[in-house]
């Protein structure tokens, strides 16, 4: 195997969801990065970012919990932390913001050295910017044959704009471009950034069945055969809770909800097992039928540059 240039080594922060209900997001993220020549180094002994509960106590608590992971990455000599989870991403970016805003408070809360020479990105941003749709298109071995897939970004990938500094907060298109590059047909989807109900699945379930129901309904009306997501919480609400949504709405959706990394992986020629497709609750079988036979004309990414 060819030695990779150092700058491609990226600190990987999976986050707690990816150890549990979103394990296929972890598996497909690692597999896709490997296939594209992006070397991930998992942050050693990483901890939970604190998510919404930490924020609700004190933004400094959130900053310190997320900050420990950034500090561990910095200690390991890495300058980019990638996390697939938008909730974790917001916490990591929030920590960097807090360090600038209140350096002393942040340092006291964290209790370990941290210079702040690290940046945080999502896996979507990595695919969109480090690889890019053109190079991705060249690396595709099994394109989707115009399968209509709705791009659902959720709330936090591109917001708040001041933190995210990626794509557009109202009408993001990075996932659209990636889906097009792997052969999907991307319908106009007006609910790209509508909220799915977030963590209220447990505490206020009717909120989630209502909001997620609207998103699934719009995806069906847009003609989508599946929904592409990049957030473990959105995926959980749209997929795991789809039966609850169907019960509340009195109708069937049966709409597969697939991680963008799973779709990219399949198009790159990885097997359904390698991207954890069997872990989804609503069967994505109809979508897989749309995959083209392996094409031998695809260039490998390392040749493409």
């Amino acid at each position, binding site marked *: 195997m060819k030695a990779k240039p150092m700058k491609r080594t990226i600190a990987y922060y999976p986050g*707690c*969801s990816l*150890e*549990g*209900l979103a*394990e296929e997001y972890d598996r497909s993220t690692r597999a896709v990065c490997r296939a594209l020549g992006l070397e991930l180094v998992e942050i050693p*002994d*990483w*901890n*939970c970012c*604190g*998510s*919404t*509960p*930490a*924020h*609700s*106590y*004190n*933004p*400094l*608590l959130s900053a*310190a*919990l997320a900050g*420990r992971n950034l500090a561990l990455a910095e200690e390991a000599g890495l300058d980019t932390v990638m996390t697939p989870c938008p909730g974790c991403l917001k916490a990591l970016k929030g920590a960097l913001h807090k360090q600038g*805003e209140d350096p002393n408070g942040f340092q006291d*809360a*964290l*209790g*370990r050295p941290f210079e702040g020479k690290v940046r945080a990105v999502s896996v979507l941003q990595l695919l969109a910017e480090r690889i890019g749709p053109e190079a991705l298109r060249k690396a595709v071995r099994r394109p989707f044959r115009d399968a209509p897939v709705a791009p659902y970004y959720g*709330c*936090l990938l591109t*917001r*708040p*704009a*001041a933190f995210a500094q990626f794509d557009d*907060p*109202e009408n993001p298109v990075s996932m659209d471009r990636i889906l097009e590059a792997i052969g999907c047909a991307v319908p106009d989807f007006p609910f790209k*950034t*509508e*909220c799915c*109900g*977030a*963590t*209220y*699945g*447990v*505490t*206020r*379930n009717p*909120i989630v069945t*209502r*909001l997620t129901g609207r998103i699934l309904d719009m995806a069906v009306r847009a003609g989508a055969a599946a929904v592409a997501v990049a957030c473990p919480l959105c995926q959980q609400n749209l997929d*795991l*809770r789809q*039966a*609850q949504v169907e019960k509340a709405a009195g109708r069937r959706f049966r709409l597969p909800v697939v991680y963008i990394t799973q779709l990219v992986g399949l198009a790159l020629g990885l097997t359904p097992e390698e991207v954890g497709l*069997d*872990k989804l*609750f609503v069967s994505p079988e109809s979508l897989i039928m749309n995959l083209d036979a392996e094409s031998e004309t695809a260039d490998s990414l390392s040749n493409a540059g």
Partner: protein
Amino acid sequence: MKNGQNLLRIQESRDAGFVERVERESGQRVSQCYQCGNCSASCAYTHVYDFPANQIMRLIQLGQKDVILRSRSIWLCAQCQACTTRCPCNIDVARVMETLRVLAVEAGAVTQKDIQLFYDEFLKSVAAFGRVFETGLLASYNMKSGKPMTDADLAPQVLRKGKLALLPHRIRGRKEVAAIVRRFMDGAPERG
């Protein structure tokens, strides 16, 4: 509530220092809000709020501390950032809502106790193991909230997919993580 109307006698319950307190804690200039209503028009949660987001902003300006800190809205905001994205005054409305939660906890005025309980159990899990243990979190929430069957309908399919973890992952640095949590929260366990 009188004659079906939610009347506030604002002159009697005004806390003159409240606007400044919220502005200082949130870093946002709430006093600049001119009630355009973009936040409420963008909000997916107004149907469960007692006061829509724009009214919360107005109540802050009017110094209605007790009304706001006891409102349901501040606990049902999901931090989706739609309001923040669309405010023409560049007020980070979601951050203001978050600040109000912090102030409600501080004042002992939390009205949505089950949501606070979920957050408490979440942070206790983080303090104990260093990472959140989903299964244990749900179990302790169900037990303490008096709603033992929450999400029980999901268990069979989660089990079938091999996604039901029965043991937590304990990180080596969990004492360090517990120390961070303890700086902000009472009742966190010493160690996992």
